[in-house]
């Protein structure tokens, strides 16, 4: 018996050192949020194997990191609230700039907008960013609300008479109070970060006014699918998801035309940050990966693929013309000036918001 096993044992022993030397990078990123070619290229250039895992909500990411020892080397939390909260909880590792020569490629103005929560930008680099707005089926919305309707405001969704007329063709809202309530408050003319009782009451009233007409309240990844197949005709979600759905719908060529509405009231702006968990098993590989991503040609490839703007200005000329000139991908300066960044509410306000959200979902 032993003699028969011997060659096998020798074989295992021979492969052991090789396995121990193999470097692995564990990436935890949003779903549909990278150019798959970039990952393959990173492995080819550095010899570091990438184990790539995805989430479709910030809550899942934060839950895993809060438990500790998540095993991930790179995570991509959104600036507010998750990145800010992880920072406060001490769950992120300071980044060693010396290991990332490409850090200088980053847009200083964009990085400045995150420095408020991460002084000196010590814990994260902006990966991609975008806005929150409406994905719509232009023809259906025109058919329901009249050909003259202005497609530039949250009025389409939040005015009950509009929602009522659109109910039949499918209204969806992403299941994320942190990404929906600020826009609703702004539409009401209130402070998007307000969490006083009267602010929340007003937001709740606005949401309840359209609740009967909302088909479902679901994770943004499901909304992307529903927009691409034409099952949703109005959906409140992330800009890049709408633009990806638009591309998918065109590929499918079944007569579904998806458009993005960046609210003129002022859109919520968010930044997804490349960050390293405090207990990352391979921080060196994580630094190498950030450095790799911040190259202009790599970033251009990612923006081409996922249709979100990046924070490396030198990549702009390398981005496909159609994407580069799409105002929904790269908002014009005047629209950016009206946009706002959501804050991180205190814990008790957070529970009030979650409870409000649960009432909205239940419809009572």
């Amino acid at each position, binding site marked *: 018996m032993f003699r028969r096993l011997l060659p096998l044992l020798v074989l295992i022993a021979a492969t052991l050192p090789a396995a121990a030397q193999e470097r692995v990078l564990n990436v935890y990123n949003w779903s549909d949020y990278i150019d798959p070619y970039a990952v393959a290229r990173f492995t080819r250039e550095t010899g570091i194997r990438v184990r790539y895992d995805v989430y479709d*909500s910030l*809550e*899942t990411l*934060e*839950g895993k*990191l*809060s*438990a*500790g020892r998540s095993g991930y080397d790179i995570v991509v939390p959104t600036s507010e609230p998750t990145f800010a*909260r992880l920072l*406060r*909880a*001490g*769950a992120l590792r300071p980044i060693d700039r010396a290991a990332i020569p490409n850090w200088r490629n980053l847009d200083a103005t964009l990085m400045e907008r995150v420095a408020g929560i991460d002084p000196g930008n010590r814990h994260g680099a902006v990966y991609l960013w975008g806005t929150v707005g409406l994905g719509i089926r232009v023809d259906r919305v025109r058919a329901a609300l009249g050909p003259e309707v202005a497609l530039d405001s949250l009025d389409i969704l939040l005015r009950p008479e509009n929602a009522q007329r659109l109910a*039949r063709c*499918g209204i969806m809202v992403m299941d994320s*109070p942190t990404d929906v309530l600020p826009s609703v408050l702004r539409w009401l003319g209130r402070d998007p970060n307000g969490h006083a009782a009267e602010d929340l009451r007003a937001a709740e009233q606005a949401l309840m006014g359209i609740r009967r007409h*909302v*088909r*479902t*309240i*679901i994770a943004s990844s499901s909304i992307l699918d529903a927009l691409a*197949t*034409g*099952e949703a005709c109005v959906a409140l979600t992330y800009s890049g998801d709408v633009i990806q759905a638009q591309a998918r719908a065109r590929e499918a060529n079944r007569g579904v035309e998806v458009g993005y509405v960046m609210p003129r009231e002022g859109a919520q702006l968010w930044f997804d940050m490349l960050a390293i968990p*405090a207990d990352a098993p391979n921080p060196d590989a994580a630094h190498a990966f950030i450095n790799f991503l911040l190259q202009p040609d790599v970033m251009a490839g990612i923006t081409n693929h996922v249709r979100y703007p990046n924070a490396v200005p030198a990549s702009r000329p390398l981005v496909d013309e159609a994407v580069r000139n799409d105002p929904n991908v790269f908002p014009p300066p005047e629209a950016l000036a009206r946009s706002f960044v959501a804050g991180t509410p205190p*814990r008790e306000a*957070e*529970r009030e918001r*979650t*409870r409000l*959200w*649960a009432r909205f*979902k*239940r*419809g*009572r």
Partner: protein
Amino acid sequence: MTRRLLLAPVAAWLLVFVAAPAAILLAIALAEADPGVPPFRLALAAAGFSMLVADAYYLDALLSALGVAAMTALLCLALGYPMAIGIARAAPRRRVLLLAALMLPFWTGFLLRVGAWIGLLRDEGWINGMLRAAGIIEAPLPLLYTDGAMLAGMVHAYLPFAVLPLFAALLRLDPTLAEAAADLGARPPVVFLTVTLPATLPAATAGFLLVFIPAAGEFVIPELMGPPEAQLVGRVLWQEFFQNRDWPVAAALAVALLALLLVPIRLFQRIEARP
């Protein structure tokens, strides 16, 4: 001595996989929420439990989850009885085939099966597509994200847990009993109610509980197929854990669910113990 030795693995199993997790859960339920990794500080605080009592939201979530679980279990029994009777009465070779047909879907991933249901029920899905092609409807029927979709998914997921104990009991049931009842003039429904049902009641209770207990805490099916208003305890637990990041309240809720589930389990033991 030998008896103790034989019981040792069982005791170890219970200690490691039942008692220890329950103790950890209780410890977190009594902890204080605190931003950090992990997001709580061990203490003897009642904040988690007092929150459950103070806000009717949680009781509502618990009760509606128990309601949906009971409904699922009853539907599983209603479907399970004819299936189990059919399988038990089949010729032995066909019986194997029928059992395989019952179990086969369980060899595919759970999420995959939920995904298949979504594919059937969505607006552009198979059912709406066929109805539309047949000219029966013009606009798609809203099938997905309804209570019906949620129940269909739950019943499909848990059906074998109801069928298998019923099947085992029916196999042991002497067929001459039913024949005798029929000979004495009882019609099939009467035979079922007066002979089959009483004789298989413990198995039906077991099947009910095997479905009811996991269904009460179900998260995935209500989340992916149910209407947004179905805020069952599984979803509320998720919210407390992930959205509010309040692990003590989430743990307290899990302890409360566990305590509520002990009631039917105790009831079941009574029925089992009955001569």
